[in-house]
């Protein structure tokens, strides 16, 4: 039976027991948390249901993506100085960063197991997509880390979107596109799903920023910090502006996603249901 984190792979290498345990301590809590995050769970359930059924292939990819995302999340927390509830037993932040590096390499290496399930060309394409998206994520993170003190205006919305799209949008583009690439032979469908995933992930970033407005540091470049620059009806209070703007953005992005899937009615319906489940009023995210 496959270990939930597939850590058994590490036992085949000449690694110290302590290192393996530290690595497990690093990734386990965050991976388990991600597997309970409704937009992620709903995403994989939807993609697995709507694409031709290859359960083991889907699971292998989902495991790798989840570990990658957990690793990126930990890196982000370290760089932002966030409080981390469950720390690995290491003495220095340098050791912690090294574990993050090892965790990413481990996540990437999990893709190797797909070679037993998909053609070589498909795996090559997936690895290229993976690396392209990870480089975009790194670019977005770099821009985010450097953006704190810049003056803000209405045009800063474009910078904010660029960062959100590169960081979170690319992450979900990889999830959607990777699953479609592995589970379908239709390249146009995979391209469409990649873009739909980018819309989905970007919306997740917007929603998270709006939800977490109260806990964000003032220097953070987030959507709530930019709402005052949007021309709006003065009849509304700031929370109402946030709510109304979210509603408007969601509608635009939802429609853009469904337009991409117009040639694929079954997939379009499934994605429509996914967006509703993830973002609709009253649905916890």
């Amino acid at each position, binding site marked *: 039976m496959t270990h939930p984190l597939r850590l058994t792979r590490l036992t085949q290498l000449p690694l110290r027991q302590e290192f393996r345990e530290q690595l497990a301590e690093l990734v386990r809590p965050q991976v388990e948390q991600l597997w309970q995050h409704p937009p992620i769970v709903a995403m994989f359930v939807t993609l697995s249901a709507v694409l031709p059924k290859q359960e083991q292939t889907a699971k292998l990819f989902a495991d790798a993506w989840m570990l990658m995302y957990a690793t990126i999340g930990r890196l982000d927390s370290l760089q932002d100085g966030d409080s981390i509830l469950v720390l690995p037993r290491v003495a220095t932040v340098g050791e912690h960063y090294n574990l993050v590096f090892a965790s990413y390499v481990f996540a990437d290496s999990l893709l190797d197991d797909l070679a037993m399930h998909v053609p070589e060309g498909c795996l090559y394409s997936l690895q290229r997509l993976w690396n392209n998206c990870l480089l975009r994520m790194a670019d977005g993170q770099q821009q985010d880390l450097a953006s704190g003190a810049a003056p803000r205006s209405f045009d800063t919305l474009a910078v904010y979107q660029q960062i959100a799209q590169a960081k979170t949008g690319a992450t979900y583009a990889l999830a959607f596109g990777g699953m479609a690439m592995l589970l379908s032979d239709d390249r146009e469908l995979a391209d469409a799903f990649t873009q739909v995933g980018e819309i989905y992930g970007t919306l997740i970033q917007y929603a998270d920023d709006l939800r977490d407005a109260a806990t964000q540091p003032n220097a953070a470049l987030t959507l709530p910090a930019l709402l005052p620059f949007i021309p709006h009806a003065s009849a509304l209070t700031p929370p109402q502006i946030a709510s109304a703007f*979210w509603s408007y953005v969601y509608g635009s992005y939802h429609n853009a996603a469904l337009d991409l899937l117009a040639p694929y009615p079954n997939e379009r319906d499934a994605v429509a249901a996914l967006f509703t489940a993830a973002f609709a009023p009253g649905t916890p995210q």
Partner: protein
Amino acid sequence: MDSQINPSHPEHTAPSAAHQEDVPTTTPSTAGALLPFFGAVPALTVVALQFAAGSFNPIEFLIDSYGSGGSHRPEQK
């Protein structure tokens, strides 16, 4: 900084299915240091201007919001 980035440029730049690595994947930018947006994700500046320009009716929003018992935002955890 120029916010007039064309959101409907036909040359999408999302990380496509990785079959086109030799094909340029970015659109020409008129925004100086600002990179172009990627793929089919609508430009937030354009959406914001549409929002402000009257596509959004605050009276209807208020009626809808109170009438449905809440906002359209995702609820907090």
